[in-house]
């Protein structure tokens, strides 16, 4: 019985571990090169949810 429970446990772990959101960025760094002071630097980072649960972005903080 103990052994069956253990096998069940092993089977469950990957399933549980898999059911989660997964944030994935194409790039995480961007170099604008040379910029003039009187411009604004604007860039768009693209990302996707590669997991199998809903991904929630809580907040963005700058530093």
């Amino acid at each position, binding site marked *: 019985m103990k052994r069956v429970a253990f096998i069940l446990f092993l089977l469950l772990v990957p399933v549980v571990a898999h059911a989660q959101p997964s944030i994935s960025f194409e790039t995480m760094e*961007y170099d604008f090169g040379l910029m003039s*002071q009187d411009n604004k630097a604007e860039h768009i980072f*693209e990302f996707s949810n590669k997991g199998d649960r809903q991904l929630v972005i809580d907040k963005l903080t700058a530093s």
Partner: protein
Amino acid sequence: MVSSDHLKPGEKGKISITVNLAGKRGNVTKRIRVHSNDPLKPITILTVKMLVKNRLHLNKYNADEIFSKKCRTCHVERGKGKSGFELFRADCGMCHNGRGTAPSIMEMRKKPAKFITKAIREGVDNTVMPGFSVKNNGPLNDPQIESLIRLIKPR
């Protein structure tokens, strides 16, 4: 700014970052932390970087252009009537501060006086170092140049 903060599996999103550059100078790096419910990556750090310059400094210039009208306010006027260290700070320090490509006073001190004199009077070919003597259409008279040589190579 994030396009949508709830993404279904497979869905795509965008995060746009805007950095206002007014008043900024030199190497600028901004990091944005993206907090999410991904248990393996609760925080993703996005980085943008750039080298910010004054509008007048975006192009490559010939050395002596810094004496031209639109550049004088910073590169010539401030040194008027000054000599020695005051003059160096006004006219030379912006380039010879040890941070850019131009050598600092300590580094220049290692060179022979003759070489230093020639560099200040006539400039250095193929660099942005202009000739500062009046004879080379520069703004500095002989006593001023003498004071700079003395500063770099004290006797």
